[in-house]
């Protein structure tokens, strides 16, 4: 039996690693991967809360406990859309700038 807080702490660790990577990394592809890491940490808390409320929910039994899992699917859809558009933007930036270093991409104009 694992307490709910362990799952939350693990999700927090993943989210914190994602934030750190987003801030300290200089390669634009790695920055996108850090965002995916953050979304994964959030997904873990969604599923952990779903299991928690299913176990202790009482009157919440039925719809509410399982909807945590459904939100994971929506997060995955958003992540997929973000990855597709983001990687297309990376390709467009690379085509004009010839670099992947975010320090050298300092103009919004393509």
């Amino acid at each position: 039996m694992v307490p709910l807080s362990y799952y939350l702490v693990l999700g927090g660790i993943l989210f914190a690693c994602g934030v750190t990577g987003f801030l300290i990394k200089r390669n634009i592809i790695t920055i996108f991967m850090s965002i995916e890491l953050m979304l994964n940490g959030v997904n873990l808390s969604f599923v952990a809360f779903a299991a928690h409320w299913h176990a202790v929910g009482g009157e919440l039994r039925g719809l509410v406990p399982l909807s945590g899992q459904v939100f994971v699917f929506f997060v995955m859809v958003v992540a997929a859309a973000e990855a597709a558009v983001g990687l297309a933007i990376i390709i467009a930036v690379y085509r004009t700038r010839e670099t992947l270093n975010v320090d050298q991409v300092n103009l919004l104009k393509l």
Partner: protein
Amino acid sequence: MISVHLILFLTFGTVAAAGAINLLAQTHPINSALSLIAVMAALAGEYLLLGAEFVAAVQVIVYAGAIMVLFVFVIMLLNAGVEEHTKGSRVAVLFGIPGMLIGSVLLAWVMLRHSGTEAVPAGALPGAPKMIGPLLFHEFLLPFEITSILILVAIMGAVVLASKPPTAPAPPREGN
């Protein structure tokens, strides 16, 4: 008493955390991508422990399969090399690292103290597609349809952004 559930949780959690830290430590994007795949596989194990087997399967198929393949594909397409490091500001080092440590310790303390000591039983969730499907197609039908529109827009945006821009007429060359 240490249960099998706790041992499995700690194993998958250690793999996930180590992969996340390795993502930060690596300088080549392809190494970061591989460690992110390890994180996602370990998270799929955690979902299985919780009983959410459909979420675990989708995690492996969509995240580790589709999205990460897209990442690796772009890394190879752009021939991304080792990132060059630029020095961060001194203020960030002086205040950022202690601030992050204090914040994470506080957050972990609050979570461990106040989020209840009720254990989550192993395999508690009814996570079969049979349970998820009616929820997705009845109660969450509107968000589901909206995500399909989102995907359509994302596909069109990706095609527009990544397609070659119309070539402008070449500027007249001086000399010869």
